């Protein structure tokens, strides 16, 4: 292959990657996301520069990885931080522009509205339909048929709510049979048609006014010069209130749905001042620390103990034991956690079946907060000790055997050996691992979410906080449990969490670099 064909292939490859990207960029621009389109264009140009110019050589290696990191780590972080300063929850969900659109699309039937009878025809593909409208009191003599207006094909349920379609004048009805009234009501089509607004050729809007009829409509709201809206039916004026995130009348009465709005540090001050949030937050905060610390401690202690035991050269079948002991680490954790959820079921589970048969006790793992917490620590010990054991074994094997021989002459007990020789030697290189374990458990979402889901419910936790929740599951529930959807508050807590774990990671980095040098 000569040089020019190689070049040609290179250009062809570059074009096949770049052209679709530029096309998407163009689509983005056309749909009105100017800022995003500019950003993407900037990244594209930067990418071309890096791969075309020799000046950007180093960045050819960094660009793809760092780009992914930028979009899926740094951007979400900034976005979350930004949301944490907003009122953004189930009541104030939409953007202000969207709420204004909804207001402007609201219509009412004015006096003297014209009625239109409608027929609905099934469209070409599944669940698509076409409407045909005829005026009810138009010129209907024998010679002159009333005009007929046809809609384009649309799908039901509607893609957008409200959805606006243009009507066009047509001499003939669509092909096929119109649906009967029975078919319309049985399919609940008349309910789905409610969000539909049809625009006549003369720009008049018609909408469904009864089961059998469409009628001309007028918009309820008109935009005023000062950015508010005027009700054309009764003349009320409403204005956007950035405090409440609602459009309000002069008397402070809320109209329509709320919108997202700047809240300053309110979400953060709610954590400190609002008793409904502060109380569960503080308790969950301390339990998170206790859980992460105890998990780290217990897994380390058991892992260390087993590692030391298996280093005992006189013991037979050590490799077999070691392989079997690693088992809990080899199984995907979420499967084990869900299995434990069943085994610790206080009425039917294996654990209580066993304890009941042997000791005649059936602890309430699911309803007693302290026992639930104990259960979590037991399960996490089961999941976590093999990792500690593996790492301790690695460290133990690097200790010279001769120091034990010297102490054997002194006649030391194994425990004294461990305390005076092994632990001081193994602990320093373990510190970064211990910090990492703490940080990992601090945000161990899967364990809590899949094992208890935070239950039992915390008294005074507004139905969202649970006794076994840690900060990360509590935050998830605040944002995603149906009753919650408080994205602003969840983002504020997420930001606090990030600061805590970020500091831990930084400390760990310093420790690792310190021990390496």
């Amino acid at each position, binding site marked *: 292959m000569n040089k020019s064909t190689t070049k040609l292939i290179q250009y062809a490859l570059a074009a096949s990657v770049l052209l679709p990207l530029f096309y998407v960029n163009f689509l*983005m621009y056309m*749909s009105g*996301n100017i800022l*995003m389109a500019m950003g993407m264009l900037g990244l594209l140009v930067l990418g071309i520069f890096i791969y075309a110019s020799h000046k950007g*050589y*180093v*960045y050819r*290696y*960094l660009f*793809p990885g*760092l780009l*992914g*990191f930028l*979009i*899926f*780590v740094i*951007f*979400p*972080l900034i*976005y*979350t931080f930004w949301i944490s300063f907003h009122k953004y929850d189930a009541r104030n969900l939409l953007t202000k522009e969207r709420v204004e659109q909804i207001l402007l699309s609201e219509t009412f039937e004015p006096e003297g509205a014209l009625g239109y009878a409608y027929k609905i025809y099934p469209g070409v593909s599944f669940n698509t339909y076409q409407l045909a409208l005829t005026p009810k009191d138009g010129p209907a003599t024998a010679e002159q048929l009333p005009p007929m207006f046809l809609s384009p094909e649309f799908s039901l349920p509607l893609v957008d709510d409200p959805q606006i379609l243009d009507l066009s004048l047509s001499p003939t009805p669509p092909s096929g049979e119109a649906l009967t009234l029975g078919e319309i009501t049985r399919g609940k089509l008349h309910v789905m048609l409610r969000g539909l607004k049809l625009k006549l050729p003369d720009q008049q809007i018609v909408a469904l006014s009864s089961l059998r009829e469409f009628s001309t409509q007028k918009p309820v709201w008109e935009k005023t010069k000062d950015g508010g809206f005027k009700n054309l039916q009764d003349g009320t004026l409403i204005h956007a209130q950035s405090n409440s995130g609602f459009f309000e009348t002069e008397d402070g009465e809320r109209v329509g749905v709320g919108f997202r709005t700047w809240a300053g540090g309110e979400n953060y001050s709610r954590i400190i001042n609002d008793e409904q949030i502060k109380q569960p937050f503080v308790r969950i905060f301390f339990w998170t620390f206790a859980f992460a610390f105890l998990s780290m401690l217990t897994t380390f202690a058991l892992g260390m103990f087993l590692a030391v035991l298996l280093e*005992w050269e006189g*013991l*037979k079948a050590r490799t077999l034991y070691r*392989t079997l*002991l*690693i*088992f*809990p680490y*080899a199984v*995907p*954790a*979420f499967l084990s956690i*869900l*299995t*434990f959820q*069943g*085994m610790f079921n206080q009425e039917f*589970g*294996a654990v209580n079946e066993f304890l009941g048969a042997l000791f005649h006790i059936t602890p309430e793992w699911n309803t007693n907060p302290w026992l639930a917490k104990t259960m979590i620590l037991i399960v996490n010990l089961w999941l976590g000790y093999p990792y500690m054991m*593996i*790492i301790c074994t690695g460290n133990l094997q690097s200790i010279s055997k001769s120091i034990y021989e010297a102490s054997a002459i002194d006649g030391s007990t194994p425990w004294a050996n461990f305390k005076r020789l092994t632990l001081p030697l193994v602990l320093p290189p373990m510190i970064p691992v211990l910090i990492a374990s703490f*940080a*990992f458990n601090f945000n161990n*979402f*899967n364990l809590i979410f*899949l094992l208890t889901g935070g239950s039992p419910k915390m008294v005074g936790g507004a139905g969202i906080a649970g006794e076994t929740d840690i900060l*990360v599951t509590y*935050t998830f529930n605040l944002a995603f449990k149906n009753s919650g959807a408080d*994205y602003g508050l*969840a*983002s504020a807590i*997420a930001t606090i*969490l*990030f600061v805590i*774990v*970020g500091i831990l*990671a*930084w400390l760990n*980095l310093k420790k690792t670099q310190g021990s390496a040098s």
Partner: protein
Amino acid sequence: MNSGSKRLTRKLLAHAFLILFIMMIMTPFLTVIASSFSRGNFAPSKLIPTEISLNHWKYVLGIPYDEVVNVTTGETRTLKADVVPIRWFWNSIKISIIASGGILLLSGTCAYAFARMKFAFKNQTMTGLLILQMFPMVLALVAFYTILEFIGQFAPRMGLNTHAGLTLIYLGGVSIYIWMIKGYFETISTSIEESARIDGASPFQAFILILLPMSAPIFAVVFILSFISYMSEYPVASVVLQTGDQWTLAVGANSFLYEQQKLWGRFSALAVLSGIPITVLFIICQRFLVSGLTAGGVKE
């Protein structure tokens, strides 16, 4: 008691302890296997099923079977899963392999630049990568949702409820792996690469032909670790993937355990079926992993 018999008692005690301990560790596996073969959907509670039935296995594998609806008349109906659960396993494998491959590509090239090249703010970027990655993915879900919704407007195949979209999000988690690979690169002497450079090789050729083959073990470790962490990932997948046919194993397995009705039998059959290959893979790769794990890194 002399020291010889004291040693023997200690040894016996150690063996007894280890055997008991391992038996205790293994019970969850045994109860799940038993529960997958039991009749009815009861929580894992027995080591040996009282009534053996293959229905849960048939359900998971998508084989139609008859279930008694009315006990008195003995009336039955044929049951078959709408979405065959084994499909979730396949989805998970597919996503995890593609995402792990992507991670290797992205983090390998980045690590090469960090280990072998000079550029402005190199150390700061490395530190920044590690600390910013500490932001838990779960809490960025609102942002992920917004990003995918936005992408979906222009490229529906990469938006919400698609495997490509989920994979894209997973590809963001490169920084731990960049650190691991960079650490390994730094243990390899630069002398061979330098002599290749003198012979006229470009930095890219030195990377592909010399450094990569010597770093195969660390790439294996990174692949396995990321594969396992993506197989286990629950929260992001549960929000991004909305319909049953798109679910991953973690989302699907948890879907059997609703608050109101926990289908332990079906869950158990699925857990055994999908847990065994992953476990076997892990045990085989264990030797590789031990060296990688001691370099630092936590299983998720």
